[in-house]
């Protein structure tokens, strides 16, 4: 097991501004007797794109949900944009956003109505202009006045992404952002995420099963298995360590218990 951070993540003392967007220290989450997340620690630098990789039940979704405050940890500390979660969530929720296949937008409302509501919830200024801008950026104009329930899977994903970007978040949490999309739409979404990170200096944390997506998007990969961090480094370094040319092969190595060269 490798951790690229020389020091374990320790949230800064009160009043000290953190350089990290997310700091997780000794996070444990138990569901009854199941250890969904088992004592993990990591820091995510501002302006980076980090991928959480792992098979089903690896703990990716739970980790993201704890960071968002949707799930309470059994123990451990989480800081998001310099604030302790969930205690200081009021200070930080307006500066972050998320997209997940576990939630939907209201189906009977039109795209414009949904974006209006979420824009108001996030106190977005010049909301009508912001919606027009998102409609243009994400190519929503043709169906912006159509009910969300009448959209295709690809259109819904773009709308969900528009909702996630409505408040121009500093931190974007994405759970399987391109799941169930055709390759063309998935590629388009990835390109947009890269552009957003570059133009807004935003931090993105995404959980994914899609190795190519992670390879292409992420500066850093955290591989999880059974609630623990198995590896944590840049995609190139991880592939080199496992002597593999793709992350998919690395993933299979990890899933099947083959250890990296030089790992203990």
């Amino acid at each position: 097991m490798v951790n690229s951070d020389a020091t374990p993540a320790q949230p800064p003392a009160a009043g000290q501004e953190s350089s990290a967007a997310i700091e997780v220290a000794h996070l444990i989450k138990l569901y009854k007797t199941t250890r969904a997340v088992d004592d993990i620690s990591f820091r995510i630098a501002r302006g980076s794109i980090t991928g959480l990789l792992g098979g089903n039940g690896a703990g990716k979704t739970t980790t993201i949900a704890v960071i968002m405050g949707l799930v309470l940890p059994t123990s451990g500390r989480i800081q998001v944009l310099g604030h302790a979660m969930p205690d200081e969530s009021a200070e930080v929720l307006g500066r972050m956003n998320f997209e997940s296949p576990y939630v939907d937008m209201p189906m009977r409302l039109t795209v414009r109505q949904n974006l209006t509501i979420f824009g108001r919830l996030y106190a977005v200024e010049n909301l009508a202009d912001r919606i027009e801008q998102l409609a243009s950026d994400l190519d929503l104009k043709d169906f912006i006045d159509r009910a969300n329930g009448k959209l295709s899977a690809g259109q819904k994903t773009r709308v969900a992404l528009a909702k996630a970007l409505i408040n121009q978040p500093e931190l974007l949490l994405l759970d399987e952002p391109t799941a169930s999309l055709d390759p063309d739409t998935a590629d388009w979404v990835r390109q947009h995420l890269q552009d957003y990170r570059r133009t807004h200096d935003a931090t993105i944390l995404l959980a994914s099963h899609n190795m190519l997506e992670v390879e292409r998007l992420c500066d850093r990969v955290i591989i999880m298995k059974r609630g623990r961090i198995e590896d944590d480094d840049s995609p190139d370094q991880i592939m080199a360590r496992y002597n593999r040319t793709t992350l998919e092969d690395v993933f299979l190595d990890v899933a099947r218990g083959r250890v990296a060269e030089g790992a203990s």
Partner: protein
Amino acid sequence: MSEIATHHAISWHRIQAMVLRYWYLLMSSWPRLLELIYWPALQIITWGFLQNYISQNDNFFARAGGTLIGAVILWDILFRGQLGFSISFLEEMWARNLGNLMMSPLKPIEFLISLMIMSLIRLAIGVIPMTLLALFFFDFNFFAIGLPLIAFFCNLIFTSWSIGIFVSGLVLRNGLGAESIVWTLMFGLMPLACVYYPVAVLPDWLQWLAWTLPPTYVFEGMRTLLIDHVFRADLMVWSLGINAVLFVASFAIFLALLRSAKHHGSLLGGGE
């Protein structure tokens, strides 16, 4: 310091956004609108004719004109008030939208206030036509009750919100498997709230239990007003006092159930 205060303050903007969300939903679906009017109208017509029939054959009911119809309308305020609150909440569960809301800056108290406002709007859509039907079909002017009506209404709506908050917490914690409680819990209170008969009808040992429920005071007060033409302000004060305790307790229970839902990861799915 002021920034912290801003983050913790209740935002009217966010409450407006949620009311707008439910308003869009209501306006997008005529069956939803029709249903709001349909059941109250059916209730008032059925009970109104029953009251007419009994009045023609019984001296007491001939003198106590309107007590049945009045009880039906007040019961509907209580029941539809809770339903209006809870259905708006269920819309979020059905839409799998709760995660989006809980991850947004929306605070639980703002969410609940928006549900209370929606319960008033839905109630108005259902009950106003009901009162007009009572006037035209049975010559019963509900609004002629006058100022006491405000006391009756406020007490009943507070109770309906308390029950709505409690039930929403249960659904939040247990998922849509607990949905049936939304439709049935209020009916569990009906026998003890003495909607259609005086408290004195109950056995002694049940009467003290009936007096722990705020609606009992309202229905008893309504009968006193319509039969004896006396407004019992003391009954309304008692009802208000118990309502205050009930409201605070239900809000505290909701927060505890929300916390429990976060512990169990229930907010991620929202299914059964």
